[in-house]
């Protein structure tokens, strides 16, 4: 069994790229991050339950949704981790699933302080 390896070459949060994507609209950026903060725990929970019960279709679906959100926000490392889980779900690869989930959870947890900090600054 091969342990999932963190893709350290990808940036955790490519802020410049994200600003391009939102066309420098800071208000939109704030709204998107707020949606992420609100919705990602629900999707992570759904993914966690799917992993726990080895429901591979649901693993694929939940990690696909998370991958979409993370990619749109240029959270590249976490998006890669979600893409990895999506692949495992698609190919019904159960070995290493929990480690892959842990890696994704860690990546998302690492992002949250940055998200919170941006949202706090935006509120001022």
């Amino acid at each position, binding site marked *: 069994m091969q342990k999932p390896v963190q893709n350290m070459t990808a940036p955790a949060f490519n802020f410049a790229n994200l600003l391009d994507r939102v066309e420098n609209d800071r208000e939109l950026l704030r709204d998107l991050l707020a949606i992420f903060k609100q919705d990602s725990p629900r999707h992570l929970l759904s993914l966690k339950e799917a992993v726990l019960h080895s429901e591979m279709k649901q693993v694929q679906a939940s990690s696909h949704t998370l991958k979409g959100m993370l*990619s749109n926000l240029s959270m590249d490392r976490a998006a890669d981790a979600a893409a990895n889980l999506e692949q495992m779900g698609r190919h019904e690869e159960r070995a290493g699933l929990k480690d892959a989930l842990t890696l994704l959870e860690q990546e998302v947890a690492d992002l949250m302080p940055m998200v919170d900090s941006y949202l706090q600054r935006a509120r001022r």
Partner: protein
Amino acid sequence: MNILIADDDRLSRKLLEKILQRAGYDVITAENGRQAAEQLCRPDGPRLALLDWMMPELDGPGVCREVRRLRNLSYVHMILLTSKESKQDVVQGLQSGADDYLIKPCDPEELKARLRTGQRILQLEDKLVEAREDMRFNATHDTLTGLFNRGVILDLLGRELVRIQREQGCTSILMGDVDYFKKVNDTYGHMVGDEVLEEIARRLLASVRSYDFVGRYGGEEFLIVLNSCNASFALARAEEIRKSIAQDPVQTSRGLVAVTMSFGVLSSKDWEARPLEHLLRETDVALYAAKAAGRNCCKVAKCDSFPQGSLAPQQASPGRAR
């Protein structure tokens, strides 16, 4: 221009919605494939769509297939949004009826450029449809009056005769001719003659019901098919139509020109299964009788004029001063 964004991820919807609103689009959103298909299949639904590949209820390719199957009136340009990059997936998406695809997350400039391409294709389609409709109209309508042309009015009459025979209903044929029209042309010129014919066409159309047919049968001759109108009403209807022409002179570029029309009337009650040519000949004979009676009047055809199964003698044409 309206555009539909279908994505189950509200973050993605919000991002695309804002970018496209800024680019001047009116955005409609759908949270799943079923909602998207319903919106796009409405006759007045959006004609541009961005569809996420993976959606609950119905996926992006499923939406494309449904729209191609159900919406025939106008083309919808559909772009699939996908993180799938394999050739096989792209082929599958395009085969489902999608016009294009974009890899997520989308670059805003590329997204807008692809949508402009879609709009160009839709504009081209609109021009082709408009040209086809113009050609269809010109092939079926008289260019001067805008009424059905001779071929079409006879075809419609033929269909109506089959229908009333099947349903044992009734219908009436009116053949009208402008009295002394040659005099109008000789006195005021052909341009004024055309203006008179145009106004007569307008009045004829205004005098009949929406489900009746009016056509230009010849130079100054018109054929009117009064659907589901029995013999007892046909003459009264013909009189109303005649009065609509006679009551007010026609305003032309050379001043007011007074015109009248004579009508021959034939009602289905009075005929058995006869060929169309016989019926027209008999209506024409009634029109001739109206002319002979002093014009500006209506005469009902007597259907025993000709033996069934043979063509009537050519009594209406020679030397008739219309």
